[in-house]
């Protein structure tokens, strides 16, 4: 050993040891890395687009292991863009944030909410912008929100929150009943979906032309599950569908139309409202 140390330059020995151990550890680390990524403990590398869009400091922070700190900082920055209604910058910030932490559903949900609800709402009321331009931007922001949702669902296929937020965009802003029903339909079969997702799927399916019979069967199925499902809106939608589908009187549900009963309280023989709410 002493001979080796005296004959071979130390730097060569160091490099040899580094190279040999590097060659040994490379496959071990590759396997370990794959297992950590599969277990969601290690985040996959940000996409190329995200790297290009990052500011120099954000890029350095990300590469230096401060990924979650950079993401948090960008969330705060995005909030500044939201406060100043700078929707383009906000979308760009969320592109980077979601690339840094693709498995954090809340980032995708926030991006969809900001673009699909706030930015579109802003376009509905901001009269400084010509109406044609506002409509164009309204559609653009809604499309960006949908795009975020699609990318978010690729990363988090079982996400209920992303679907619920997307459904809100279709429901409140785009007024697309068929798409709303489709998204609620996807949400309701995911683990941890709230009960309202099923009812909302039925309500919006009932308003989707050509799907009335399907909606009726679905809503009647919910109705038969018991009192906890018999909300006023469910009764109302079933009543509407019974009229539309001309369901025979004997097969109709016994409850009164909630709207009609609200308008005519004196005629009601039932002392409670649908859903078990007592009339004071």
């Amino acid at each position, binding site marked *: 050993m002493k001979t080796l140390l005296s004959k071979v330059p130390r730097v060569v020995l*160091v490099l040899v*040891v580094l190279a040999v151990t*590097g060659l040994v550890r490379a496959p071990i680390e590759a396997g*370990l890395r794959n297992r950590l990524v599969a277990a969601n403990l290690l985040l996959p*590398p940000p996409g*190329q687009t995200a790297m290009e869009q990052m500011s120099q400091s954000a890029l350095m922070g990300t*590469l230096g292991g401060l990924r*979650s700190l950079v993401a948090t900082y960008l969330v705060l920055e995005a909030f500044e863009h939201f406060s100043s209604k700078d929707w383009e910058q906000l979308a760009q910030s969320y592109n980077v944030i979601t690339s840094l932490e693709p498995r954090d559903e809340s980032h995708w949900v926030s991006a969809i909410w900001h673009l699909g609800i706030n930015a579109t709402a802003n376009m509905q009321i901001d009269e400084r912008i010509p109406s044609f331009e506002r409509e164009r931007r309204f559609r653009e922001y809604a499309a960006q929100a949908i795009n975020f949702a699609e990318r978010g669902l690729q990363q988090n296929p079982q996400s209920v929150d992303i679907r619920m937020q997307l459904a809100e965009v279709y429901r409140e802003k785009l007024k697309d009943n068929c798409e709303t029903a489709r998204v609620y339909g996807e949400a309701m079969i995911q683990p941890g979906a709230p009960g309202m997702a099923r009812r909302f799927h039925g309500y919006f399916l009932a308003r989707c032309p050509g799907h009335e019979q399907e909606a009726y069967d679905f809503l009647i199925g919910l109705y038969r599950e018991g009192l906890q499902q018999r909300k006023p809106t469910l009764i109302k939608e079933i009543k509407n569908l019974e009229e539309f589908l001309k369901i025979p009187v004997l097969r109709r549900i016994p409850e009164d139309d909630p709207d009609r009963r609200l308008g005519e309280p004196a005629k009601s023989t039932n002392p409670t409202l649908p859903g078990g709410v007592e009339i004071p």
Partner: protein
Amino acid sequence: MSEPTPTHSPRSAAAAVAPFSLVRIWTIATGTVTQLVRMKSFYFLLAFAVVIVAIGNINIPSTPAKELAMLKKVSFGTMDLFAWLFAIVSTALLIPRDQEDRTLYTILAKPVRRIEYLLGKLGGVLIVIATSLALMFALCAALLYARETIYVAEEFTAMQADGRYSPEDIDSQIGLIRAQGLQPGLLVAVLASFLKATVVAAVTIFFSTFASSSLFTIIVSVLVFLIGHAHSLATNFWLAESKHNAFVEIVVKVVKILIPNFQLFSFSEGIVLGEKIVPALVWQMGGLTGGYVVVFLLLSLLVFVDKEF
């Protein structure tokens, strides 16, 4: 009366000294801890406290669960940053400081082996890092628990007062908040930061065995850390940018072989986000850390073993 003549020659006295002593390593380690404490190294905890209190008071429209998640991410990100930065700076300062103070000569003049000296120094740095991480975690846990308790109480009161929510609805909402609150798994996230800092300290101690100054060691160690962290993230980007140029591919491979992959040690990020911990993977990461420490200590010894001072 004449003085008794020594019965042992210097050679036999040296032979009587144990070839490897944990006691000697422990003595050097505790001395290193004292040395680092005297450098007022724990003052950075104040900066940490300011950061987490500040982030805890930022008001953005958010749910309680998201606020807790943000607090956790910033706290653990800052902990991780302080741990590796502290590992580099403190380790880089130690050997040159011992040389300046001439403590190194006194130590090496005694029957202390060079590997014991290196192990003692590394041990001392790791004790200080572990203590710092424990203090930072205690601070973070207290704040997280306080916030969690407030949010849970507020949410419970609000949902009960509303009257529309069933006990199951309330439980599931409270569960969402608790999932982002103080969880035992967060201790593993602290361990991940400690493992990363351990490897960083081992690499830095290697540089400090041949560096001419602390500044050089700090700069080189930070660079190596950044490259070691970035290469697995940036490899695809570089290769795509260079259209898989052969030269870039070779450079990437050489870098991967020579420089440790620090990005692997960022598995605390997943734990902080609430992912399930896989104990086998944590053990494997512990093993990998051990491997790195052994290799870099051997490399340090290779340079340090017959270095003349």
